[in-house]
């Protein structure tokens, strides 16, 4: 497992680079332009644009109903936007999603997997859905990485929340995705399990150079993991930057205080121009 100090130091270096990046600089994995979603007359996402750089960890942060899950759903192709463009790994997600879906994956504690199948059966199904070779070896390997080897023959429904989250992560990493999208990856986990999950995600990102995009309410998690934060409120991106830069701009001690400032309209960043 990676140490806690090393990723933070690594993050700081990458944060400085990302903050100084021109928009069209290094390879962009996700490019979103003027993305809008209206449901039943409600504007869930209102004309947002952002990019996510290759090899970065980016967080979508915002209160309940800010539009994070709607945005992630559109990125995954589960939800069609009302307007706007999404380009992922060089392909238009509205017309060519099947070209890039094998190269990405997703994990969320709120999206289930068949509870009556064993962990091994679930992972075997998903390994086949992603068209992997040597399915048995891959299932064993990812189960070993996630420390769930001893659960492979147990029905998913009989596992604890922490074990289920590990299985969900194993499913999300089964195809070694270049882009991993996570919706509150450590929700419902106790502090020890949550810390373990963050460490695993960090080490996966460092080992493979994958790009991670996550939605989270846990500001400590975002500060620890992420190179860049997109702050959402009422369907729009109201601020963005590295955690350190946001904290400095709002003159606060940590990201949680920044979150509360934005949620309660108390102060504004010194240099964000939407």
């Amino acid at each position, binding site marked *: 497992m990676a140490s806690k100090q090393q990723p933070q130091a690594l993050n700081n270096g990458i944060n400085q680079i990302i903050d100084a990046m021109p928009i069209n600089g290094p390879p962009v994995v996700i490019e979103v332009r003027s993305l809008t979603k209206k*449901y039943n007359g409600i504007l869930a996402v209102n004309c947002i644009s952002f990019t996510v750089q290759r090899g970065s960890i980016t967080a979508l942060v915002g209160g309940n109903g800010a539009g994070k*899950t*709607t945005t992630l*759903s559109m990125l*995954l*192709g*589960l*939800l*069609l936007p009302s307007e706007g463009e999404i380009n992922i790994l060089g392909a238009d997600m509205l017309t060519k999603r*099947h070209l890039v*879906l*094998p190269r*990405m*994956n*997703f994990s*969320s504690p709120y*999206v*289930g*997997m*068949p*509870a*009556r199948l064993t962990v091994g059966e679930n992972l075997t199904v*998903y390994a086949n*859905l*992603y*068209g992997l070779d040597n399915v048995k070896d891959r299932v064993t390997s990812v189960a070993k990485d996630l420390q769930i080897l001893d659960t492979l023959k147990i029905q998913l429904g009989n596992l604890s929340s922490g074990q289920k989250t590990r299985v969900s992560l194993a*499913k999300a990493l089964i195809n070694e995705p270049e882009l991993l999208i996570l919706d509150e990856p450590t929700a419902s986990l106790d502090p020890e399990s949550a810390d373990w999950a963050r460490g695993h995600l960090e080490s996966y990102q460092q080992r493979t150079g994958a790009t991670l995009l996550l939605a989270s309410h846990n500001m400590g998690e975002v500060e620890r993991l992420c190179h860049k934060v997109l702050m959402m409120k009422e369907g729009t991106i109201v601020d963005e930057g590295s955690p350190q830069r946001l904290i400095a701009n709002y003159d606060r001690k940590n990201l949680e205080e920044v979150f509360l400032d934005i949620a309660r309209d108390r102060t504004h960043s010194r240099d964000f121009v939407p």
Partner: protein
Amino acid sequence: MRGLLWKRIWAMVLRHTYLLRSSWPRVLELAYWPTFQLLLWGFITTFFLQHSSWLAQAAGALISAVLLWDVLFRSNLGLSLTFVEEIWARNLGQLFISPLRPTEMIAALMIISFVRTIISVTPAAFLALPFFDVWVFDLGIALVAFFFNLMVMGWAVGLVVSGLILRFGLGAESLCWLAIFLIAPITGIYYPVKVLPDWLEPFAWILPSTYIFEGMRAVLFNKIFNWNLFFGAVGFNLVYLFIGIGIFLRMFHLARVQGKLLQQGE
């Protein structure tokens, strides 16, 4: 204390009243089964009152009809319930962020439906011999033609039902059972179509299953395989399968517009 007890009971009644009120298929289902039973057994009674010697001409006509009807029923149920299983498991979102395409899902549902149907009807087909002295395999190659036509019709109905469940949510899950029984009284499973009122007969003849059950009686009573009936079933089946696939894909598209792939529940 007694007041609180009634309040709790009332709360549960209210909970399920809200559920009923929010789901027209659930309300429809309440009225559906008595109506269905009345029509089916009413027509059976009418027929046997007029043709009491009919069964003596072909032993096993009713048993064979029951078995073939079960092929249609199980084929439909095998497809639609397999789809509903994914919703119960809240697994649809996971499936469709993988490279799985909706058309591949349809193909998989058809294969699983076939396997489930074989598992369902095979024991009954064999048990009919010791219990009733009916060997359904005496239908010969015609049985294969009947079986596959009924399978395809079951798939078509199952795809429409699955599409509607995707559109209206699990409140419509009873359609898995209800939809196929809608046609049972008019498709001539246990009696010829001519027993139906004149105005109802044209509706019977737009159902592929009607051609199959009439074809089955032609084999059992007259020892002939009626090719016109066979091609009638195949033709209508192709049309219905095309419509079923089209409705499923359209509802899948609408589910992506409305965000329902991640939000399926009661």
